[in-house]
């Protein structure tokens, strides 16, 4: 039975919903507004909200001082690359765990998740030394490797929960209907798993795009992605609020747009399995 909601309750919930939404969005809005201010206005107290002289000067200066495009391409390479490699490793792993589980499957999954419980800084020194010895410091390939391994447990878990939702009966039906393993995967499994794979890709790209700890510690210039680009504006020589905001806006804009277009897919992916 549907629960009855009166008009007044509806209004109340709408107002609360918008309030929470605006509250969560406010930091991004404020960053966006600050990026159009001059440095002076940016640190003015009391803060100026909307009525100031809008300027694009920060964006020009940020682009002149540090090469946005290069950082952007590094971010794209690292996030897409690590996602692709991660998927190639995770899809077979998740298939095996979902459709041919062993008595140890649950333990393997928990063990993989446990690596995410370790504070990253705890392994910084060994990983840094390995990277140094293997000449991987400040290389895109090194970062792709690092981020692949860091996000792999999440990819495997997500795909595993997705694949678990595909009823085994349907795969058996395909087998009875004469499909070979390859055809079973191509005609039956893959089409049914596409939404799951898509949302896994999206989430992983976002995670890799925003990953700052490893990208800051393992890169200097050549392979530095947008996270390093932002960080370079909070330098010891003083904070430049407006330029930092412009840099941040430029860094989050691509992923924000990607997220905007795929939010339905993403929500479905994150809540999958929670409700049937």
């Amino acid at each position: 039975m549907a629960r009855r909601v009166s008009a007044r309750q509806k209004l109340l919930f709408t107002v609360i919903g918008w309030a929470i939404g605006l509250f969560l969005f406010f930091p991004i809005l404020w960053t966006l507004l600050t990026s159009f201010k001059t440095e002076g206005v940016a640190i003015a107290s009391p803060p100026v909200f909307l009525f100031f002289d809008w300027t694009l000067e920060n964006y020009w200066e940020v682009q002149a001082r540090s090469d946005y495009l290069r950082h952007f391409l590094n971010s794209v390479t690292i996030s897409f690359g690590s996602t692709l490699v991660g998927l190639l490793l995770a899809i077979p792993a998740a298939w095996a765990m979902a459709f041919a589980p062993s008595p140890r499957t649950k333990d393997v999954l928990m063990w993989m998740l446990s690596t995410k419980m370790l504070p990253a800084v705890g392994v910084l020194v060994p990983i840094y030394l390995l990277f140094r010895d293997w000449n991987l410091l400040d290389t895109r390939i090194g970062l792709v490797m690092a981020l692949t391994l860091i996000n792999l447990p999440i990819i495997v878990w997500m795909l595993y929960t997705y694949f678990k939702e595909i009823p085994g009966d349907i795969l058996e039906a395909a087998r009875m209907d004469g499909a070979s393993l390859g055809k079973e995967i191509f005609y039956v499994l893959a089409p049914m798993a596409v939404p799951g794979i898509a949302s896994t890709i999206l989430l992983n790209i976002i995670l890799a795009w925003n990953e700052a700890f490893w990208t800051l510690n393992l890169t200097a210039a050549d392979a530095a992605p947008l996270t390093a680009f932002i960080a370079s504006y909070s330098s010891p020589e003083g904070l430049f609020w407006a330029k930092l905001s412009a840099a941040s806006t430029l860094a989050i804009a691509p992923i924000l747009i990607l997220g905007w277009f795929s939010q339905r897919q993403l929500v479905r992916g994150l809540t999958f399995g929670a409700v049937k």
Partner: protein
Amino acid sequence: MGSIVLQNVSKSFGSTSVISAVSLDISDGEFVVFVGPSGCGKSTLLRLIAGLEDLTSGRILIDGQDVTGHAPARRQLSMVFQSYALYPHMSVYGNIAFPLKMAGEDKRVIERKVQDAARILNLSDYLNRKPRQLSGGQRQRVAIGRAIVRQPKAFLFDEPLSNLDAALRVNMRLEISELHHQLQTTMIYVTHDQVEAMTMADKIVVLNAGRIEQVGTPLDLYRSPANRFVAGFIGSPKMNFVEGQHSKRYKAHAIGVRPEHIALSKTQGEWQGTVGVAEHLGSDTFLHVHVDEIGLITARGDGEIDLHHGERVYLTPNEARLHRFNEQGIAQ
């Protein structure tokens, strides 16, 4: 052709034995029903025949050929699953055409065969729909359509009607029986519902705890059950069992008498008791009688019998239809 022979088929999962040394002959065109309580191994036996599970020991022959190690696809059997197991991303047409497509049939042949199957199953108007847009009965028909297009050697049905409501179940039961008469193909049907078994089968295989208890025609099993398990499982309502003093009189450890073989009277009879619940079905009345010194006995009376809760009643079992069992529960 579609004769299937099981020779000493066994299956264990780890150390748990699910099927132990089952041997069975199924001849071409027969409608065989595997029936038994849940967990008796009937679905596992079907999956062994299908090739979805591997045998632990024994052999399976189809048309005289040993298929024990063959993959499901090579056995040329079709299966209808309890959950229908339709491909959700394909249309009804795509679902029915799938086995033909896998067999590499020509497009025009596929088109013709799918249209034929759709006509037989009244699905012609739904070919472009997705499974989620269909009712339960229609989905089941699509699953059957997918099974018949390939003209398999035998059909395997794994409790195909248990997700349907009661009225639809009766309809689909008739449709499947009708289909069997039309196609004359071997069918193996798994169910826990003895009414389905009795109404559809040429031959019933009663399974219990991974073993075959008895094989026979529905009326064979009804008339002469081999043991107490079969006697209690076949027939509705269940057979009444009486032990002790009252069975000694009939020279048996236990006697069994079906509710329909008990005469009711208000004035005289062999056993006396008090009427408990009376179930009036219109055509029949089932009386649950608390018989003195024996316990609860179910008896069938005619539809308009005038007996009510708490009244005294006499019961007389029909001696000609009495079943006698020894201490091991085997029929004497």
